[in-house]
Structures are given as structure tokens and as C-alpha cells.
């Protein structure tokens, strides 16, 4: 985990969790040996729970601490996604220009053939693509 994004909080949470584990190990030993009754076991477990809830709070706080930097970067990524869409539109514009160039090639071929009746469809196609762009 990188610096400044909750590492100390998580480390502290880890300390509390280890403390809770120690409490639990003693509690489990007392229960197994029959040294404590059920209400006492439950009361002691509450102490363990309190430590675990504090550890949980630190984990949540660490997760919350990650957000500010992320939200800023998120705005930049959104802009990048928009930029990509704009670039796709530009590429599609190029596609239309290429279609026009190809129409001109057809027209040139028609002119080269010396046949007047070939010119009409070539001009029509050129006109259609020109309107499309």
C-alpha cells in the first residue's frame, strides 16, 4: 500500500486485532478448562468485541481516507474517456473524407473510360457522400 493512503491506520487496526486475539486465546483457555461460566464468558467477549469494533472503525476510516485523491483522479479519467469519444468522432470524419476520395477515384475511372453514361452514377455517389460528411 502506498504512503499516505491509510497504511498507519491499518497497522494500528492490526495491533488492536492482535490484542483481541490475545484476549480470545485466554478466554478460550478459561472456557475449555471450565474456569468461567457462560455469563462471564459473554461479558469478557464483549471486551474483545469492543477492540474489534475499534479495529473495524480504523479500517473504515482508512477506506474513507483513500477517497479524496481518487475522486480528483476520477475527474481526469472522465475527461480522458470524453477525449477518446471525441477522437473516435474525428476518425470517423476521416473515414468520410476517404469515402469522398474513393468516389473521386471512381469518377476519374469513369472519365478515363470516355463513356458519358458512367459519369452520372459516379457523380451521384460523390454527391451522396459529400452530403453525408
Amino acid at each position, binding site marked *: 500500500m502506498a504512503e499516505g493512503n491509510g497504511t498507519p491506520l491499518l497497522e494500528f487496526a492490526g495491533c488492536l486485532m492482535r490484542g483481541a486475539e490475545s484476549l480470545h486465546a485466554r478466554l478460550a483457555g478459561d472456557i475449555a478448562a471450565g474456569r468461567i461460566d457462560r455469563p462471564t464468558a459473554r461479558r469478557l*467477549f464483549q471486551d474483545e468485541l469492543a477492540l474489534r469494533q475499534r479495529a473495524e472503525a480504523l479500517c473504515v476510516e482508512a477506506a474513507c481516507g483513500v477517497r479524496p485523491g481518487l475522486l480528483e483522479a476520477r475527474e481526469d479519467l472522465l475527461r480522458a474517456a470524453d477525449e477518446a469519444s471525441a*477522437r473516435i468522432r474525428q476518425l470517423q470524419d476521416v473515414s468520410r473524407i476517404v469515402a469522398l476520395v*474513393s468516389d473521386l477515384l471512381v469518377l476519374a475511372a469513369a472519365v478515363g473510360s470516355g463513356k458519358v453514361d458512367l459519369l452520372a452514377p459516379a457523380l451521384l455517389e460523390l454527391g451522396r457522400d459529400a452530403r453525408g460528411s
Partner: protein
Amino acid sequence: MRWGILLLALLAGCVDLRTVRDFADESARFPAYTDLTVRFRDTFRREEPYLWGEALDTARVHDRNRQAACRDLLEIHRTLVAYLRSLSALAGEGAFDVSEGLGEAASGIRAHAGYGVEARHAAACASLARVAARRTATARQVRAVRDLVREADPSLQQVLEGMAAAVACIRRANENERDTVAGLLSVEIPYADAAQERLLAALAKAHLQARLEEYRAADAMGGKAERGIRKIQEGHRMLAEGSGRLSRTEAKAWLAQCTQDLKALRSGLRGLGRNSE
């Protein structure tokens, strides 16, 4: 012959963007982060039956903060996916499609072959137009992809770094929740030894085993999420820093391997109790 040489020369400059597209698609599909965040969001619903008194009140307060954090963490992932899908679209075949217009051009020439425009001239003319268009388009497309990844890389790295940090928090919380639930059951089960509580004790033991398995799966998912995030970071960084070498076989192979690793991680997530698609 001259046409052939020209066509070959034009084709030689083409760069395959498929590896970029596959990488972006696979990265966008990687689900572990969202699954984990959703699971983290639902912590209180899972742990509530095991809490009482002051611990329950405290957990309720934490839950409000957790819900707020998860909303943003999920939103951030949606933005990341939107960016990756845009990158995929920009690197995609559909970003620049000249086939339709040029197909019409070619048929326009061929239809009148009998008027003196020879079929081979028409075919060569159409092929030249198609290759020239593709060459121009691909060059522009490669440049657009390269510019995009370079511009977006710092933000993307920051987002992924933050996501990795969030996953670390979630894994630690998962561990703590596991010990809370297992702790309560291990305190209660030994006292359920009376004859009338035997069934209850058996059910509690089975429940404990099932819950422990669930936490183990969640932790494994966390591990895969961290590895997946690192893979996406590495892949995108390579694209940003070395996208000028995209045509080189090693760069392509490297990125393809990154994509394969992400696929393998995603495949490994099946059966780990995924809670969302």
C-alpha cells in the same frame, strides 16, 4: 506488379491494435474489486446477528461511514471501466470503418468494366483506395491511442493505486469480521453441551465452518483483486511508456501475456462466492 509493390509497402506500416483492445476489454471485465467493495458495503448486514449492546451501536455508526465510502469506491470503478471501454473503442476496428464506402467504390468501377475500364484496373484502383485509407486510418488511430494512454496514465495509476489501497482495507476488515463471528461462535458452542442443545451445537459448528470458508474465499478474492490491479497498472504503464514500440513483437507479446494473466485471474474467481457480475 507496380500495384503489388505499392500495396506491400503500405501494408508494412500497419500496426495491430488488437492487443491493446484485448487488454482494455479484459481489464474492464475484471470483477474482483467491485465484488469485494459490494461485500464490504454489506458488512453490517452480515455481522449484525452476532453483535449486541454497545458493540452493535458502534457497528451501526461505522456502517454509515462505510456506506458513504463504498458509494465513492464503486463510482470510481465505474469511471475506470468507462475509460477502459473508451480506450477499447478507440483501438477497435469500428473506430474507423472504410469498408462500406470503398466497397461501393469498387463495385461502381467493376459494374462498368465492359466500357473500357478493365477489371484488373478497377480491382487495383479499389484495393489501392482501401489500403491507403486503412493505412491513413491506422496511423491516426495508433497516434490517438498513444496520446490517450499517455495523457490518462498518471490519473489511471493514481486510481489503481487507490483501489489497491481500498482492497487492503477491505481485506483487513474481512479478517476482523471473520474473527468477530468465529469468536462469538467459539465462545457459545462449548456451553451448548446439554442434551437439548445438541442439535443447536451441531448446527452452530456447521455454520462456523461455512462462514470460515466464506471468509477464506473473500480473502482469496482480495488477493486476486490486488494482483489484477497490479496487472492493469503494469499493462497500462507499458502502453504509456512504450506505446511507440507497439509494432514490436516483444511489446505485443508482453501485453498479450498481461491480458492472459488477467483472464486467468478472472477465471480463478469463479467458485469464490462472487456476489455480482
